[in-house]
């Protein structure tokens, strides 16, 4: 019930330590989803500089890629996107009713694969800054 009065510790939202894998998967999926929506806007903003001509577009991209912050953010974007894709596949299986008893393991698997891909991508993203 949403309109219960404050019961102190019982209604405390800071119980994140007690969250189970399924709950974490849901939270991460929501979070990565919103990050991707946010990225979409910056993506469009950068691409739309192409309307100002070839030179402006090239300069904008080169200028951004020279910044270390942008490179680090790109690694972050990759990790967010990979997790969202993998967990999306996991949710697809959940929707189809396959392997629901292994939903926690598939969540851990998607975390591990995400970590592996992100670590492997770091040299590529951060080279020549």
């Amino acid at each position: 019930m949403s309109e219960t009065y404050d019961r102190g510790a019982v209604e405390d939202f800071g119980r994140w330590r007690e969250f189970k894998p399924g709950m974490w998967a849901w939270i991460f999926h929501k979070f990565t989803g919103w990050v991707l929506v946010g990225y979409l806007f910056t993506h469009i903003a950068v691409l739309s500089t192409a309307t100002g001509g070839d030179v402006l577009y090239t300069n904008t991209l080169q200028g951004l890629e020279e910044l270390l912050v942008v490179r680090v953010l790109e690694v972050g974007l990759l990790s967010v996107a990979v997790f969202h894709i993998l967990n999306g596949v996991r949710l697809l299986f959940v929707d189809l009713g396959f392997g629901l008893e292994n939903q926690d393991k598939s969540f851990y698997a998607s975390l591990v694969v995400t970590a592996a891909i992100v670590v492997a991508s770091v040299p590529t993203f951060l080279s020549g800054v």
Partner: protein
Amino acid sequence: MSTQIEQEQAEEQAEADAAAETEESHQERRLSEKKARAEAREREEQAREEVREAEDTVEIKVFRYDPEVEGKDEPRFDDFHVPFFKGMTVLDALMYARDHYDSSLTFRHSCRQAVCGSDALFVNGQQRLGCKTQMADLEGPVRIEPLPHQDVVKDLVVDMEHFYEQMHAVEPYFQPDELPEGELEEQRQSPENREKVKMSTRCIWCGACMSSCNIAAGDNEYLGPAAINKAYRFAMDEREGEIKKEDRLEIIEQEHGVWRCQTQFSCTEVCPKDIPLTEHIQELKREAVKSNLKFW
């Protein structure tokens, strides 16, 4: 321990009543009350003795709240030390605390064997059945709280009315399309079909799933895992027939029905009867889609 306030009230009440009655019964009442208090003291004394003598004791921190008694209307935690024995459950510990320390400690329990579903509690941060949870499995001090997302009536007792309303909303009873010919004819179910609904029939209406569900906490109209599981139990029962199944799907595919579920698996994790609730909800989602999409 903390029965003082209530005792005083009881005495006042007794005095007021006594004015209208004879002097003799008044005295009798006083004497019996005195005796009861002496017995309570004795029990507590005995408990302290037992705690001293016991090889192993456990500490429980119990949520206390009573809106009707002044001085208890602020939620707080009471600590009780209980002598441990092998096989002790959370409910056993609570009953010991109630019987020996504080008779005003309130909680629901009945069968003590995970059948009645009265004692779903929030133990160490998870919804569990008190009678089914071993103290030995928990890290002490064990925190015992009422079920979250439900109104607390007193101490560990929560208002289950809303939960029952949601359960009744899915018509949780057998309604076959047609009855067999003969009056004494049985309505047989195939073993395969029985297997399919087997787990869903185990529900004991304890409300642990509903309390654990994040969506139900935010959306008061959401049917909740238990009610949807009930709907599954009957919708999947082949003896009911197609017409009734359509009716049932119509109920569960409403705005606050199955589609609210976001597969967090919280209900499945806490269910004391190990019902695969999320699996059932997902299957009903697919059934709902199938009954609405008719390309053939």
